[in-house]
């Protein structure tokens, strides 16, 4: 291809990527792509740049929406980021993943400060009477699952307060869970200009970690009231059709050094129409008998976070 051809092709590709191709241009570009491997290569080069710039900019925006400081013309270390879900199709999981690209922007961000966070649950398992209830919540605002309150001690100090939660040892299971349902009817709905998300953080501890050890947080949104979520939850065949949104994160703790608390966080956008959000905190191993060891949990925080919708 000569330079003129290349320029024309680039212009067509640009128009395509910007969504402003005319019908005639679409036909012309399609034909060139069908017929020429050079054209396809050139298309991919530009289209890849297009997609990557978008991801880079979105990463920066997400960091801003999450209240992180943007630094002018400086690199920000890669780290975990949250994925904003732009629509609410059922059963879609776009959780946390490592950002391969984070770019700091010098441009002022309209929405960077418009973030209201409200703590709706803080649990440090201080109630000595706390006993494991059923596996799955049948009502809101109570902990269910295999969890009990134990005093913190030398080898396993509490993160907050004097006591901590201990996962039940169930050798026949790989994981045990503590679960909680947040009743969204208890809170005023966000305005039309805001997106509501749920943020969960929890500290986990296990004195006998191995490469199969996993701590995990799952969050799922349902249109059902808290009392009606259990049957939906156990109906595995239809679960994916009913759940509005869910996000899960496995955390594999590093094995180096002394046993320590590991803080795990997760965030999920709450789709409109959600009545209940299930928070599930699990610990175990990807191996038989994983739930047969000592595992602890403490300092569980659940926040509802309202952020301004990005400017369209």
């Amino acid at each position, binding site marked *: 291809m000569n330079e003129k051809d290349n320029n024309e092709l*680039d*212009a067509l590709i*640009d128009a*395509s990527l*910007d*969504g402003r191709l005319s*019908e005639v*241009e*679409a*036909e012309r*570009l399609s034909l060139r*792509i069908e017929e020429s*491997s050079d054209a*396809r290569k050139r298309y*991919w080069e*530009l289209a*890849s*740049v*297009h*997609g*990557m*710039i978008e*991801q*880079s*900019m*979105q990463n*920066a*925006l997400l960091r801003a929406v999450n209240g992180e400081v943007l630094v002018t*013309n400086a690199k920000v270390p890669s780290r975990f980021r949250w994925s904003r879900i*732009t629509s609410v*199709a*059922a*059963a*879609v*999981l*776009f959780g*946390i*993943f*490592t950002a*391969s*690209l*984070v*770019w700091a*922007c*010098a*441009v002022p961000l309209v929405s960077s400060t418009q973030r209201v966070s409200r703590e709706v649950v803080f649990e440090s398992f201080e109630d000595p009477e706390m006993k494991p209830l059923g*596996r799955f919540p049948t009502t809101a605002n109570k902990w269910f699952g295999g969890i009990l309150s134990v005093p913190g001690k030398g080898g396993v100090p509490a993160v907050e307060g004097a006591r901590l939660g201990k996962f039940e040892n169930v050798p026949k*299971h*790989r994981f*045990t*869970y503590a679960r909680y349902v947040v009743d969204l009817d208890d809170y005023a709905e966000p305005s039309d200009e805001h997106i509501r998300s749920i943020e969960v953080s929890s500290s986990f501890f296990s004195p006998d970690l191995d490469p199969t050890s996993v701590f995990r947080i799952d969050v799922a949104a349902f249109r059902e009231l808290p009392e009606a979520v259990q049957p939906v*939850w156990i109906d*595995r065949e239809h679960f994916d059709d009913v759940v509005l949104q*869910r996000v*899960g994160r496995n955390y594999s703790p590093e094995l180096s050094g002394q046993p320590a608390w590991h803080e795990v966080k997760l965030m999920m956008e709450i789709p409109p129409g959600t009545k209940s959000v299930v928070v*599930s905190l699990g610990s175990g191993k*990807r191996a038989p008998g994983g739930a047969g060891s000592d595992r602890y949990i403490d300092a569980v925080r659940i926040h509802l976070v309202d952020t301004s919708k*990005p*400017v*369209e």
Partner: protein
Amino acid sequence: MTNPQDRTEAPNATEEVQLLFVRHENSIRAFVRALQPSLSDADDVIQETFLTVSRKASTFERGTNFVAWSCGIARLKVLENLRQKKRANVLSEAAIIALSEDAPPPESLSEMQDALESCLERLTAKVRDLLWRRYSRRQSSTEMAEEAGMTSIAVRVALSKARGALRDCINSQIQSTR
């Protein structure tokens, strides 16, 4: 959570591919965005792809290329979307099929992403501002032109040049590391 009945608490095949999807979402999204310039259509396609990948989890062979497998599904979803929307001003099915067969391998996208980071820093503040408005705030050329004090044609030209410059910079960086 993918095991509501708690019969066995281990991650199952569905959960494993979902985690793989999350891990490789950047690559899958880049593939879809290249074939589906409309952002809302691309989001639909990615979500449909996720659902199908989850449904077909048992057919994924461990140890094979997950991104290639997912992109194969994504390609079909792009074509489905194209047929549903019946738009005339988009690439033809034959073009999309040809493109997807020549898609760059995920490793090369990763290499490009690494290069992009430093290439972005070489742009002028004004050009970065335009890119920010276009890709993050999703402003139209007209909106950008109004706020940046330019004509919309000048905005389009500047964006086109910026993408071209980034492509050349990325290619140059990749060549120099080989």
